């Protein structure tokens, strides 16, 4: 019955189109990216003014929401935050998804805002996807402080940055240049291609290479992405070495990448031939520093980062700071910090780890 068949076909098609059009809301003129440019940015700044000399409130409920819970880096941050919350006599909770999807974090933000948490300390999986739920949470009275990985400045009160991005980039290229004797080809093994932090640091490295005469003989030949997966980082390292026979060194500004690359070099004929540096944790890298695969690498202290984030969060919730530039607060033993532009609070310069000092750290 071809008549009924065509009828069905038509019914399917029209239903499909109808559904999509139903969602298309009214708007006729055509909403394009260009018509959208004035949107975004400049969110509602809190009207309150900072009470710089104020005291921290006690009994604050402070929750840390990491990118994913099964990550030792965030475990270390959580330790610091928990200690700080203990100091402040608040309630601390560490919760989050087991995967690193932004949508999973949204559910947790919603849950925390339902539970009327006073402060959410967030390391974001996506700079934009979380904004709407963060706004809802803030409207319900929750203070949001991001750390490690930021969201759009309009959807949080403050961002605790592990480090000044420019300084990380400079440290990385400096270490590399020292290790390869100031000349030769280098490559970068990064995390994911849209990782905000890594991309910022890589930009600094590229700028240094272009403008700083110290690095005139250093050439960046490739940037590859290991997606923060062991296997992938392994393979990308192999690929780098094969594709670039003249390669002298690899910078891996991510903890997963540097460990995977070190492990690969350790078991290959390139051990000792290729310099490897980047950002890694002492516990992960101790092995490779001791056997000479890696000479020196850097990182900030994630525990201190968590601690500072917790103090910053409590400061916002207590009205000590609003996130405006110039606000100051005291973060326990870490000392006094000043809020910079866009509500950014910087922890401090990265620590360099090498055979001499690595045994002093345990994280």
């Amino acid at each position, binding site marked *: 019955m071809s008549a009924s*068949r065509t009828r*069905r*076909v038509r019914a*399917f098609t029209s*239903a*499909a*189109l109808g*559904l*999509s*059009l*139903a*969602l*298309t*809301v009214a*708007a*006729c003129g*055509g*909403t*394009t*990216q*260009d*018509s*959208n440019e004035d*949107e*975004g940015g400049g969110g509602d700044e809190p009207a309150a003014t900072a009470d710089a000399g104020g005291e921290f409130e006690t009994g604050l409920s402070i929750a840390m929401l990491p990118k994913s*819970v099964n990550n030792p880096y965030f475990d270390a941050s959580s330790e610091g935050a928990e200690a700080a919350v203990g100091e402040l006599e608040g309630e601390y*909770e560490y*919760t*989050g*998804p*087991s*995967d690193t*999807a*932004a*949508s999973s974090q*949204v*559910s*947790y933000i*919603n*849950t925390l805002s*339902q*539970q*009327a948490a006073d402060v959410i300390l967030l390391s974001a999986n*996506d*700079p*934009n*996807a*979380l*904004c*709407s*739920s963060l706004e809802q949470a803030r409207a319900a009275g929750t203070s949001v402080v991001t750390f490690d990985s930021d969201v759009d400045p309009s959807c949080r009160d403050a961002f605790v940055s592990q480090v000044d991005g420019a300084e990380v980039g400079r440290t990385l290229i400096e270490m590399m240049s020292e290790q390869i004797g100031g000349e030769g080809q280098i490559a970068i093994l990064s995390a*994911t*291609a*849209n*990782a905000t932090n890594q991309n910022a640091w890589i930009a600094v490295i590229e700028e240094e290479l272009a403008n700083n005469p110290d690095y005139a003989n250093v050439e960046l030949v490739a940037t590859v*992405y290991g*997606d923060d997966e062991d296997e992938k980082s392994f393979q990308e390292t192999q690929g780098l070495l094969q594709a670039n026979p003249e390669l002298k060194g690899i910078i891996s500004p991510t903890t997963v990448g540097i460990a995977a690359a070190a492990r690969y070099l350790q078991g290959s004929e390139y051990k000792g031939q290729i310099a490897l540096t980047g950002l890694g944790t002492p516990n992960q890298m101790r092995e490779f520093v001791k056997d000479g695969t890696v000479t020196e690498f850097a990182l900030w202290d994630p525990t201190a980062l968590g601690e500072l984030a917790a103090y910053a969060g409590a400061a916002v919730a207590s009205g000590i700071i609003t996130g405006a530039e110039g606000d100051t607060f005291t973060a326990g033993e870490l000392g006094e910090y000043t809020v910079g532009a866009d509500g950014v609070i910087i922890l401090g310069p990265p620590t360099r780890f090498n055979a001499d000092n690595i045994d002093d750290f345990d994280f």
Partner: protein
Amino acid sequence: MSTETAPDRVADRPQSGRLRSSRMVGWDGAVVVVTALFIVIAALTVEHFGTSRNAGFLILDLAPVLLLALPMTLIIVTGEIDLSVASTVGLTSSAMGVMWNNGLPLETIMPLCVVIGAVLGAVNGIFVTALGLPSLAVTIGTLALYRGLAFVLLGDTAVADFPRDFTGWTIGDLGASSIPNVLIPMLVIAGLFAAVLHATPTGRAIVATGANATAASFAGIPVGRVKFWLYVTSGAVAGLVGVFWTLRYSSARADNAAGLELTVVAAVLLGGVSIFGGKGTLPGVLAGVVLLTSLQNALRLADVSTEALTVVTGSLLIVSVLAPNVVTAVRTTLSRRRARLRMTPTS
């Protein structure tokens, strides 16, 4: 008198058929009751669960699962499966980002996404029906392929600058109420699918196809065509979910909805749909979706750890198939025992 077909070849069919049908009525009914009970108990015992705001969050969370579960139910009822739905969501989301970056108006992009989804579904449909390949293998293949293409399109970047009019509406509420805007269209679509499955000739054809494809084709049902259009529908709905997902999180990303196919299949099976086809009701599936998502919501609110969520989802999936089997096995044993008791004295 010729070759003896006899009752033997498919001997235990009649019995299992009867038991299965009574179990069916029992199972999806049971899921509806359990879901209702669960929500009442959770509202009473879990702090913040019963609030209207949480209900709003819950509805937004379950929307994609629910929408994808509708065509998935129909496909599983025909005895096939579509594991590529979440990847289709990812690919349409990526496509949406790319089109937006290229300056297309959203009003064009959104229907286009549905069409793209339908085309992706049609690819599945062609492999399954025209080439006669097992749908499990085909859709595992397209699961990888579509997700891969999503990354090829958009890489690891995200497109986020969608207009607030749209993103706001997606997560917004109806007027001053706390009923999300998406609830009404969602219910309409669900009602449409329920009507098709349970009260139209097409629905009869779908059920017949799953229960016995040979007999269905002898009854003049174009089995292949039915399946093909279901895959197209599944793709179109996945495209719609891709639009919804992108606007809800104001973020078009290649990895959007990764792994969601498992939740969808779990919810459908939990709702009492037989993985072998031929049996299943949409009210049961709706209850399955609500149960699964509200359970996760309640566990999160009760600060139960993520690992428990994972274990619960997996266990529910197994139990939803295992439990009816155990019930059937027990009943068969009992009825056989009864039959023996009845027959022994007479012989």
